[in-house]
């Protein structure tokens, strides 16, 4: 059978197991959640702040109410879990991280130029494949554009440091202050290594002939943002004009607001709905006082002597032609002037190829087989997570080139949308975001503009996940078509198929687990090994505390404003997952008391779970009585 993945995972360029870490977050297991998020995304901590979250745009919950705040949960996982501290070798790191230490070998030598998301992702993959990898970074710190330009109100350095430390700890060697063309040449790298990856990104800011290259009170985006992050912000004149409609322009505009600009006017060619910047970023900027001036093309800088006074713009009639190509057209004679004393041009970035032409080879023209290009250097402008993806792809290509073995291809099917009939059955639950700081307050500093979720909020938000693809799987060899699953399912999902085997529609299943616990033939299991997890946790709780409290996750946080404490609590997706066997195993493992908490009748999403649970507990109590053991060892808790 072909594997399925939920659409959130399929949408993630790095193929992150979103559902996996969201489920762990819901359990308050932030360290494990962080480990899962990091498995395919070495920049998961940073992405928890800045990702453009295609996962959320594809979340199946959107058809019920709103998507899960997935990015916030990734952030919470790193913030509340034992993520990497400032010292990568610190003992506070989780077990998983320790197991990933120093993966590298000596199989082949690879040099990577540029320690941004693409370069370091490729580096980590290649180290994990047993190669010796050295990354050359011209700056004193790694992270590329995330480090140099993403403002601190969006991404704190600590998160990025954590990601970098994790990569370094796997055995990737990063050499700082090493600039291509100055400290080493491409020919030298090729001579010393079996493969070279160029991942130098897009360091140049583009400008337009209308503007002086860099003059009094005219800046370009990258140098401007870099200077601010380096702690040397230019003194902005009172009114600032930002040219450009992309995400970088938004960063520039919001940074200008924070630097005390009296007025920030953003000017862009596109209409509001066609601006390349993400919608939410535009909204956040507008909330912070950035004025949007759409459908305008810069025409002439108005200046008096050395002083800028404004920017004359021409109205735009269209930006793209019929074929969708960039081909702006202007309305004749329709001009207006936006007043301002500072202009920051943010209309795109370009790559630096100056050091790629050598006596041996001009890499801008022909690419030798041992030289690879990764990240935005190769793909053009994109996202951090897109650079991570490309880092994976290039690492696989390099590994295939070095070993002669083709890379494995894995193409699972994507789980379909939640079927229409299921949508009204899933209870709506309010989405939580960490967006709680008023704009008037947040523009005063470069502290995080959204404080993020608290631990309890994160766990509760995680509970909103519909746990797509955690549900039932039928083993056709064992199924005897006894109809038990058909009869016990709260949503009438199982059917007996044409070949006399139960069929449970993965797209409909809500993963309560009732059918799996009731199936007398043992033919139904739950995906993601939930039965094993429950058993392991029950046994651990019994051994540690002599008591096991089985809880429905949906009820877990209802009563308290803090995460449940103590070792006795074993949360299940639905209390119906707690089988008689599980109760008995908890007793066998040494529990003197096993409590099974019921959800209130009216609050239960999985209608039949309550009755079945009551029956199961009664059955175990009868068994204990028959055996001359104390039936009160197991009890229902309302």
């Amino acid at each position, binding site marked *: 059978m072909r594997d399925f993945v939920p659409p959130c995972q399929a949408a993630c360029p790095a193929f992150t197991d979103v559902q996996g870490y969201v489920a762990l977050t819901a359990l308050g297991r932030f360290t494990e959640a962080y480990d899962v998020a990091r498995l395919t995304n070495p920049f998961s901590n940073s992405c928890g702040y800045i990702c453009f979250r295609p996962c959320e745009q594809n979340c199946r919950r959107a058809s019920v109410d709103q998507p899960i705040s997935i990015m916030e949960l990734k952030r919470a996982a790193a913030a509340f879990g034992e993520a990497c501290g400032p010292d990568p070798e610190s003992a506070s790191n989780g077990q998983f991280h320790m197991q990933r230490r120093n993966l590298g070998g000596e199989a082949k030598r690879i040099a990577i130029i540029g320690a941004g998301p693409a370069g370091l992702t490729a580096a980590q993959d290649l180290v994990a494949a047993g190669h010796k990898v050295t990354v050359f970074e011209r700056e004193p710190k790694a992270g590329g554009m995330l480090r140099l330009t993403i403002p601190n109100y969006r991404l704190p350095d600590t998160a990025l440091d954590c990601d970098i430390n994790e990569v370094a700890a796997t055995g990737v060697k990063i050499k700082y202050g090493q600039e291509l063309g100055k400290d080493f040449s491409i020919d030298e790298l090729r001579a010393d290594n079996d493969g070279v990856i160029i991942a130098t990104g897009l360091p140049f800011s583009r400008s337009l002939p209308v503007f002086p290259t860099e003059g009094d009170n005219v800046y370009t985006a990258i140098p401007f943002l870099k200077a601010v992050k380096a702690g040397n912000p230019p003194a902005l004149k009172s009114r600032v004009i930002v040219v450009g409609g992309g995400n970088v322009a938004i960063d520039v505009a919001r940074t200008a607001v924070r630097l005390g600009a009296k007025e920030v006017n953003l000017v862009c060619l596109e209409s509001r709905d066609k601006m390349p910047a993400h919608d939410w970023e535009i909204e956040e900027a507008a909330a912070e006082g950035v004025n949007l001036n759409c459908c305008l093309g810069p025409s002439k800088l108005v200046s008096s002597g050395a002083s800028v006074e404004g920017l004359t713009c021409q109205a735009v009639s269209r930006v793209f032609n019929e074929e969708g190509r960039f081909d702006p057209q202007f309305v004749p004679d329709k001009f207006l002037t936006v007043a301002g004393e500072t202009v920051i041009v943010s209309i795109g970035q370009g790559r630096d190829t100056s050091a790629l032409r050598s006596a041996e080879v001009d890499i801008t023209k022909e690419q030798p087989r041992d030289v690879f290009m990764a990240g935005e250097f190769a793909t053009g402008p994109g996202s951090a997570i897109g650079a991570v993806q490309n880092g994976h792809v290039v690492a696989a290509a390099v590994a295939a080139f070095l070993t002669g073995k083709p890379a494995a291809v894995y193409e699972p099917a994507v789980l379909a949308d939640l079927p229409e009939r299921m949508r009204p059955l899933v209870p709506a639950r309010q989405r939580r975001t960490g967006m709680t700081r008023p704009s008037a307050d947040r523009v005063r500093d470069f502290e995080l503009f959204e404080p993020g979720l608290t631990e309890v909020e994160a766990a509760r938000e995680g509970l909103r996940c519909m746990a797509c693809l955690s549900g039932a799987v039928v083993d056709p060899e064992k199924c005897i078509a*006894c109809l038990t699953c058909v009869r016990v399912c709260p949503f009438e999902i199982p059917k007996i198929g044409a070949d006399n085997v139960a069929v449970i529609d993965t797209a409909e299943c809500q993963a309560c687990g009732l059918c799996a616990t009731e199936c007398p*033939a043992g033919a139904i299991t739950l995906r993601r090994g939930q039965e094993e997890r429950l058993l392991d946790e029950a046994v651990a709780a019994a051994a540690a505390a002599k008591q096991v409290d089985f809880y429905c996750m949906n009820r877990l946080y209802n009563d308290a404003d803090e995460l449940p404490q103590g070792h006795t609590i074993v949360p299940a997706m639905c209390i119906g997952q707690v089988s008689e066997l599980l109760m008995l195993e908890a007793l066998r493992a040494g529990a003197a008391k096993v409590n099974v908490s019921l959800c209130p009748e009216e609050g239960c999403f999985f209608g039949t779970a309550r009755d079945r649970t009551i029956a199961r507990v009664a059955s175990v109590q009868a068994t204990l009585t*028959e055996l001359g053991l104390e039936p009160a060892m197991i009890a229902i808790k309302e």
Partner: protein
Amino acid sequence: MIVGQRKPIDEIYAMIVANDVKKLLLGGCGTCVTISFAGGEKEVAELTAALELKATSDGWTLEITQLTPLRQCEPEYTREMADAVKAADAVLSLSCGVGVQTLAAEFPGKRVLPGVNTMMLGSHSPDRLFIEYCGACGDCILGETGGICPIVRCSKSMLNGPCGGSVNGKCEVSPDIGCGWQLIFDKLNELKLGATWDEVTTARDWRPSWHGGPRRLESK
């Protein structure tokens, strides 16, 4: 379907102790008793856990192996259990009586204990109620009684109408039991076959049933 019910666990445990069983093969049956929640893979696992819990608290050394073939009533399937049977002191079969006897015949010298009471040939309803529908009498007359069997659904297996204990459509044995003949009467009326009610059923030949000794049937 053959409907089974697991024996009370204290009775099972007493058999194990009385036979001094240290290594037990707990054999489920993957067909009828699985459907009746008495002897499938799930019940085997639960019973194992319960017995081990009891044995531990008693200090009784009991090692249980679990195995659930498709059916215990066919030698081809029970033979799959041969190695496990050999290694065990005794087998506790959660099959119906047919399975228990097939196992006992297949493995001479091995103690086979029943863990299930074979209850009836019955039907399984969505509310987990099993109702006896057939007595395997060997001479079916359902065609004359509107599809309701007087042999098992009348407490006295009467063939010519209700006895004096039929009160308001219920049997005098228990108010939970519908009078079989009331059901037949209503059904025949529904089918507009009320006239057949007057026909007298002659004395029945019980030899095809269990009164003729153990039955043997040679299929064509």
